[in-house]
């Protein structure tokens, strides 16, 4: 009985081993598919970290957006330091002496037109004065933009502020 049992056990063991071998050959491929599945997990993990940064930058702008909003108008006001701009225009090496003098002549002519307007002589209306003002500003900017871009940028940023001074009689009188 023992021999029979051992024989059966051995035959079963052999059969099991063959099954294992046979199954082992088939089992190998299945592990292959699993690897593809793990990558998606890391990708998800990568995607997850990406999402938080997006959320993180989004949050700071909200906090900063509130602060700069009131700060922007405050910054615009000091930008119009006409005296400083005038001095920088005089001191810049981007424009030659004759050009500066010629520009001054044209600025003086334009200011005289504004004064005439404020005195009630209105053939050149305020709307009509806007064009020569823009033209003169373009001339100044074109002269500065290559050699003194910082000054050109500041003058361009002060475009409306300068216009508000010129078009307002009281403000203009403070600068003359």
């Amino acid at each position, binding site marked *: 009985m023992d021999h029979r049992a051992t024989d059966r056990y051995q035959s079963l063991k052999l059969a099991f081993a063959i099954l294992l071998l046979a199954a082992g050959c088939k089992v190998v491929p299945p592990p292959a598919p699993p690897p593809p599945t793990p990558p998606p997990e890391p990708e998800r993990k990568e995607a997850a970290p990406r999402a938080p940064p997006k959320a993180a930058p989004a949050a700071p702008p909200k906090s900063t957006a509130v602060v700069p909003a009131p700060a922007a108008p405050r910054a615009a006001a000091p930008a119009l330091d006409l005296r400083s701009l005038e001095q920088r225009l005089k001191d810049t090496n981007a*424009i*030659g*002496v*004759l*050009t500066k*003098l*010629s*520009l001054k*002549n*044209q600025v003086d002519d334009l200011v005289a037109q504004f004064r005439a307007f404020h005195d009630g002589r209105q053939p050149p209306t305020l709307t009509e004065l806007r064009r020569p003002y823009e033209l003169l500003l373009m*001339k100044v900017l074109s*002269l500065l933009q290559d050699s003194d871009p910082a000054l050109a940028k500041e003058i361009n940023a002060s475009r409306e502020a300068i216009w508000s001074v010129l078009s307002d009689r009281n403000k203009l009188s403070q600068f003359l």
Partner: protein
Amino acid sequence: MKRILFVVSLAASIATAADDPKQRQDLTAVIALNGKPCGEVVSYVVQADNDYVATCKDGNRYRVHVKDGRVIVEKQ
């Protein structure tokens, strides 16, 4: 005596026919600012202080000088 005068005048003409690129650029800008056709000043002659005759690339010649604090550009 004539030779000496000739040499002196030649030297003077050489001295006044200066060719400073910055001055040429300045004259170019002034002529353009005054709305005159020029393109670019290729040469100029100094006649006196703040008094130049500029020759443009397109052949135009202008006298650029200062009078009563104003820059005057006159076609020659």
